[in-house]
C-alpha cells in the first residue's frame, strides 16, 4: 500500500477563502496609526487647548460640528476606534473565555458595536444646534435668524 505525499510547498487543493484574521491583523495596525493622530488631536483640542475640560458644553460641541472638518474627524474616530476596540476585545475573549460564555461575549461585542456605531453616526449627522435655542443667548439669535 502506497500513500502519495504532495511535493513540499505545493499549493493546497482547498478553495481559497477570505483570510479574515489577516485582514483583522492589518486593520489593527492601519487604524492604530490613524487613531494615534485622531485621538491625540481630539485630546489636545478638548483637554489641553483653551480652558481644557472646563470649555466643554453643548455650545462647544455645536461649535465644533458647525465645521465639516470636525464632523469628518469625529466620524472617523468613532468608526475606527470602536471597531479597533471591539476587535481587541474579541481577541481577549478568544484567549480567556471558553464554550458558551465565549459565544455570548462575542455576540455581545458584535451587537454593542453595531448599535453604538449606528447611534453615534446618527447623533453626528442629525445634530441640531437649535435644539435648545428657546433658552436664549447667542444661539437663540442665530437660530431665529436662520428661521
Amino acid at each position, binding site marked *: 500500500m502506497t500513500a502519495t505525499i504532495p511535493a513540499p510547498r505545493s499549493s493546497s487543493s482547498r478553495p481559497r477563502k477570505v483570510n479574515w484574521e489577516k485582514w483583522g491583523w492589518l486593520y489593527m495596525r492601519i487604524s492604530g496609526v490613524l487613531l494615534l493622530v485622531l485621538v491625540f488631536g481630539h485630546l489636545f483640542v478638548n483637554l489641553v487647548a483653551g480652558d481644557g475640560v472646563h470649555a466643554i*458644553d453643548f455650545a462647544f*460641541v455645536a461649535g465644533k460640528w458647525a465645521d465639516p472638518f470636525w464632523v469628518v474627524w469625529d466620524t472617523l474616530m468613532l468608526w475606527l476606534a470602536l471597531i479597533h476596540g471591539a476587535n481587541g476585545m474579541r481577541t481577549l475573549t478568544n484567549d480567556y473565555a471558553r464554550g458558551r460564555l465565549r459565544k455570548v461575549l462575542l455576540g455581545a461585542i458584535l451587537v*454593542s458595536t453595531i448599535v453604538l456605531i449606528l447611534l453615534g453616526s446618527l447623533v453626528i449627522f442629525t445634530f441640531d444646534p437649535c435644539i435648545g435655542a428657546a433658552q436664549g443667548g447667542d444661539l437663540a439669535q442665530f437660530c431665529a435668524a436662520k428661521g
Partner: protein
Amino acid sequence: MSSQVQSGPVTAPRIPSPKRPAGTLYRGREGMWSWVLHRITGTAIYFFLLVHILDTALVRISPDAYDAVINTYKTPVMGVGEAGLVAAIVFHAFNGLRIILIDLTAWGARHQRLMFWIVVGLWAVTMAGFLPRHLSVVFGGH
C-alpha cells in the same frame, strides 16, 4: 584548543533548582510586560469609549442633559480619572507603534526590548507635558 580530551568521569555541572517562582509565573521581562500593559490599557480605553459614545449622544436629546453629564467630567475625581485615561491612551499608542515595527521590520524584532524603554520614555515626556496643564485646569479653581 577547546577540544581537549577529558580524563576521568564527566560530572554534570551543578545547577541550583529555584526554591519558588521568581516574582511571577512567566518571566518574560519587557516583552511580556508590554503585552500585559497593552491588554490592560486597551480594555480600559474600550470601556471608556462605550461610555463616551453614550454621554456624547446626549447632545441629540437636550443641551441641559448633555451639560449636566459633561459637568461631572470637570470634578476633581473625574479629572484624576481623565489623567489615568490619557496615560493609558498614550502608552497604548506608543506601544502600538512598537508592535508595528516589531511585526514589519527585522530591526524592530531585534530591538523590541530597547523600544519598550523608548516607549516608556516617550510616555513619561508626554505625561510630563500633559499632567501639569490638565491638573492645573482641574484643580485650578475655575
